[in-house]
């Protein structure tokens, strides 16, 4: 087996090595190999860099190639592949479901118990390699007007699309997006594209909020950490001139106090979607929720159709991701990109693919 697949491998918290690995082989007729062009850094990558993993950990014995937000150029295709051909520029959907279980067949492959997601310990390697193998239906050709750098953001945009679709957002509704990280920004942009009458964005970080205001043109709210969530919700409604509260809340921080504030800010019958991941156990104001018949939905990654919608939003110009790209580092400086993200420098930092 050729060992010419230069990769960025994590051996533990803070332990990264760059080494050759086996070139993936086309084993299923639907497989394709992609020459990776760019890989984005996500909060989860930073978590791996700092702690070696979230639930399952990497180790010296079982190191892991990192990265899951990626774009590239099709390199080789299996015999049954018809959707793409070598040379096609593609965005990559980095989770491969089993296709045979109840969840897969019901149209919810994102919750397939046998999902193989890029950079998931112990053995599902990520996209920070010269070549990466995927089934062809998880590669999406991008239009000429979209750069390979922008194509990396199709992945987080699809997370945002998934959350907005779960909310069943209808034109004319009001939306509160909590968090101005990549997901919050894209969730707000998507909510606008879905016809929300007003989108309000909240973040404790004023610099992020300022960027968001420029990027989206939305009204902003700064949570007051000395108030209770209930008090903050009252203030939000007053500042945003909302008598009843918002119709939809998209929670993109994972912070408990934020979720509570969001729920208190909802109008009766409103929908709360938890997109951000944070503390495993969090308290919610159930009594207030019952009295308002609040609908709560939880969102995980992206489901059938989300990538297509994300690409359509980009192609039609309804959402632009270019402003979110803050920096690009060479492949062997991947740790630098993780560090920048860890320190809150930039929004989306990219790592260039292996150069010849």
């Amino acid at each position: 087996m050729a060992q010419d697949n230069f990769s960025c491998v994590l051996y533990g918290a803070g332990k990264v090595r760059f080494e050759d690995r086996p070139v993936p082989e086309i084993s299923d007729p639907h497989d394709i190999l992609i020459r990776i062009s760019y890989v984005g850094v996500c909060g989860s990558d930073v978590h791996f860099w700092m702690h070696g993993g979230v639930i399952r950990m990497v180790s010296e014995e079982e190191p892991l190639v990192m990265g899951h937000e990626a774009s590239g150029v099709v390199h080789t295709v299996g015999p049954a592949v018809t959707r793409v051909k070598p040379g096609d520029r593609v965005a990559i959907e980095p989770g491969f479901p089993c296709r045979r279980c109840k969840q897969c067949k019901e149209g919810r492959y994102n919750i397939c118990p046998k999902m193989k997601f890029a950079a998931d310990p112990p053995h599902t390697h990520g996209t920070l390699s010269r070549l990466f193998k995927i089934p062809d239906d998880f590669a999406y050709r991008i239009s000429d007007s979209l750069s390979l750098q922008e194509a990396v953001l199709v992945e987080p945009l699809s997370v945002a699309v998934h959350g907005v679709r779960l909310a069943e957002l209808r034109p004319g509704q009001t939306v509160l997006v909590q968090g101005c990280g990549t997901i919050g920004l894209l969730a707000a942009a998507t909510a606008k594209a879905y016809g929300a009458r007003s989108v309000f964005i909240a973040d404790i970080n004023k610099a992020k909020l300022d960027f968001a205001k420029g990027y989206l043109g939305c009204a902003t709210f700064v949570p007051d950490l000395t108030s209770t969530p209930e008090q903050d919700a009252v203030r939000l409604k007053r500042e945003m001139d909302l008598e009843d509260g918002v119709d939809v809340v998209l929670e993109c921080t994972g912070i408990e106090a934020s979720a509570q504030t969001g729920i208190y800010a909802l109008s009766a019958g409103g929908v709360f979607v938890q997109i951000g991941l944070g503390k495993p156990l969090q308290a919610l104001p159930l009594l207030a929720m019952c009295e308002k018949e609040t609908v709560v939905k939880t969102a995980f990654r992206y489901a059938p159709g989300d990538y297509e919608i994300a690409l359509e939003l980009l192609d039609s110009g309804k959402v632009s991701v270019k402003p979110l790209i803050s920096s690009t580092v060479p492949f062997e400086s991947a740790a630098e990109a993780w560090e920048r993200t860890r320190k809150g420098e930039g929004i989306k930092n990219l790592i260039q693919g292996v150069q010849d």
Partner: protein
Amino acid sequence: MTLTGENPSFVLHKVHEVSFEERPIPKLSGPRDVRIEIKQTGICGSDVHYYTHGAIGSFVVTSPMVLGHESSGVVAEVGSAVTSLKVGDRVALEPGIPCRYCDHCKAGFYNLCADMKFAATPPYDGTLCRYYILPEDFCVKLPDTVSLEEGALIEPLSVAVHVSKLAKITPGSSVVVFGAGPVGLLCCAVAKAFGATTITAVDLVPARLELAKAVAATHSFIPTRGDSAAESASKIKEVLGGKAPQFAIDASGAAASVNTAIHVLAQGGTYVQAGMGAPEITFPITEFTIKELVAHGSFRYGPGDYQLAVELVASGRVDVKKLITHRVKFEEAEEAFKLVVKGQGVKILIGGPTA
């Protein structure tokens, strides 16, 4: 005619021309496949239509094709990665293999897969043979209390389940089912299992309506030939004490039934088209619009339907045995087709070669 061979199969060559052929024992195509020894096969209007017309719509029989798709059997061989079944398990076969890669498959609508390989829809062979290959996830294991004969009814029952799920039939509701053939009868049964409390079967044949009532219907109605759809609908409402139903299912394919259904439905009601008849008909579009009706087309069955069908039989909530009127041996398969052509019987079962 060798019926003691390895894989005897009942083959359609062209209209009205069938024969028994010895075919090779099929091989597993992958580690997740199973090979099933067929024990019982029911036949359906579509099988008979290929027998009498050689085609359904754009699906044309151009080379010899094994008939049959409503089967149960016993697992004879399992692939190396099969975990849910073992040799000897009795199963109901879900006889359509989707591609799993297209948008429909991934979005939860594998029944709409453009590359669906469906048994006894040209060019794919059916199940009137000894052995058939399916992926393990398209076989549903039958509990000990469910017979292989009942197992062969799971296919049409799954059609009825699919219809009822699309309609979203709710407890306490009123449903009218047009057509009391096997699908219509099973729609009545599933509607009842889903909690409908008023179930009206409509057909021209009194004997079929008697069976409908034995199965699940609470009311029945025979339309008068010559009455308009609005008149028939009015009479059905009278039978129902003036209350229009929330759900109407057509399992007849007859234009008159479709029209009557639209007229009989309550405002905001739901209509599901299960039956297949003339490809184009005249439709009461104004009535449909002003009542804000919802209409669904229904095609075969999708995720979860087979599992629910087996559960309905196993729990006793649906009794499919009532629909079995004739049983023939494998060698007499053509007899079964002729009986259906003559309009006799409800569900005729053909035993497998080693039944």
